[in-house]
């Protein structure tokens, strides 16, 4: 057998991913990533409302082997855990449980971990469990923009230095991108930013500006 960049465990999860599919009556769900920009993961949860414990979890993946394998392992790690415990699962733990992932594939695999956390947050928002509402900051906007891909290269906006400026003031978030407005991906990127920023509780308006 030739040397593949993936461990035996990654290949096993890639070939036979666990907990694949949808939960039609899910208590919470999340979608991270987007088709225009690359990898995408959807996570569905069933939660026991008494114990706040994950009783069932399923995922779907539009991505490469490390994306699929991480989605698979993350559902195995999270199943049966409380929301609080599941939230603590890190990319590193997922990677270790898979016998290691190639560093260059971090982006594709971290998406599954983000998906799990987003699904937990979705549950808490839906069930009024968000304790304190933290005001949105420039840092929070930047953190979220790290999950929006630059489709030209398939890496995120922040890493590819497309984000020129971020302003947050009185419910208005202004994002300036170093990209011409008539760029072929301008609209796709704007929509992805909207998806990430508008759900923030204190954001009333989002302005995405392009440079000439």
């Amino acid at each position, binding site marked *: *057998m*030739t040397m*593949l960049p993936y461990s035996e465990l990654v290949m096993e999860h*890639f*070939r036979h*991913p666990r907990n*694949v*599919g949808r939960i039609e009556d899910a208590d919470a769900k999340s*979608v991270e990533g987007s*088709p*225009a*920009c*690359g*990898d*995408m*993961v*959807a996570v569905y949860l069933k939660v026991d409302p008494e114990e706040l414990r994950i009783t069932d979890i399923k995922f*779907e*993946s*539009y*991505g*490469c*082997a490390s*994306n*699929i394998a991480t989605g698979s392992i993350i559902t195995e790690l999270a199943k049966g855990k409380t929301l609080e415990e599941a939230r603590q699962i890190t990319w590193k733990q997922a990677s270790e449980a898979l016998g290691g992932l190639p560093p*260059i*594939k971090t*982006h*594709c695999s971290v998406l599954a971990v983000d998906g799990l956390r987003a699904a937990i947050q979705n549950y808490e928002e839906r069930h009024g469990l968000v304790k304190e509402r933290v005001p949105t900051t420039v840092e929070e906007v930047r953190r979220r923009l790290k999950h929006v*891909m630059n*489709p*030209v*290269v*398939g*890496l995120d906006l922040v890493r590819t230095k497309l984000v020129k400026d971020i302003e947050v003031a009185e419910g208005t978030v202004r994002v300036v991108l170093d990209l011409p407005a008539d760029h*072929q*991906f301008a609209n*796709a990127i704007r929509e992805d930013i909207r998806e990430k920023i508008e759900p923030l509780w204190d954001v009333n308006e989002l302005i995405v500006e392009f440079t000439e």
Partner: protein
Amino acid sequence: MLGKLVYLDNAATTRLDERVLEAMTPYFLETYAVATSEFGYSAGIEAREALQEARSTIAGVLGASPEELIFTSGSTESSNMALKGVAMALGEKKGRHIITSRIEDFPVLNSARALEKQGFRVTTLDVDAEGLVDLNQLKDAITGETILVSIQHANQEIGTVQDIAAIGQICREKGVLLHSDATHTFTRVPLDVREVGVDLLTIAAHTIHGPRGIGGLYVRKGTPIAKWMDGGFQEFNLRAGLENIPGAVGFARAVQLVTPEETTRLQALRDRLIDRVLSEIPHTTLNGHRWQRLPQNANVTFHFVEGESITLHLDMRGFAVSTGSACFSRSLEASHVILAIGGDHERAHGSVRFTFGRFNTMEDVDSVVDAVAEIVTLLRQISPLGKE
């Protein structure tokens, strides 16, 4: 691995033909002397004659004379030599403007970028949805400063073949040199330099079952080009270095072994794959021109799934193919070609390239289509996309 490898990545490189190896062997073991002048010793004269014969054979296929063919280490070097050699020769005298296209392979793209850093201006032409260069845009882009147009004969990924005769005519009328990267068309899509106004042409041996490490650059007589490699007087004093005689002999043998019948057979494999995939697997898009394309290339996007996942599954079943997905590439960048034809990341993400060669059969095509159909169904079951 299960059974034998079905190799469908012949655009990347091909398996050497045994007959090529057989032709080369004596030049490693017996006639290994350096090519000498006609006043040298007999082994050297024999080596020199072998080199001349190889040069004549290869040049002949292009309708060129032997002195117009420079041997290089491969197509990467040939394209570097064409762009940088002309830039060096004409940059001071005529101008510093070069025109190329968005879908060129990396040797041309990155040579142009390197020249840009040295102060040359580069215009990069767009292509249409099928990968064809807009001839009017080309006409408009040529100025008095333009020294070279470099547009490929056919695309390495999507297989679209440019109307190089029309491009040559435009360049002729405007008095501008034309270079074309013919790595993927050489011997497969005939091109005669007596009929087509191309001044420099990149060719390689390893894409036609010849050895790697040898390629060629056709340089039309009288074309201004600077000496590319300093050293001795080899290759008409344009490219110094010990001649790769076994390579040249192998290259010539590989050229002789390509027949029109074979090319027709490869085209039948291509058409079978395209027809079956498009009719049997839903949500598929052919990338590149349906007819104006390389006889040995098929490139299809399987929507809602990712290319590296497809290639890994295919690898487990013994098939070698490549994809334009960012996840597959060393740079993690999606195919610049698919993006240039107006595709988005998703289109590049799910694109798979199948390229055929001498050792492929119709059974290979049928078995890879069957395998791909199963794999794509499997991956779509786990994909969040494409479900209503």
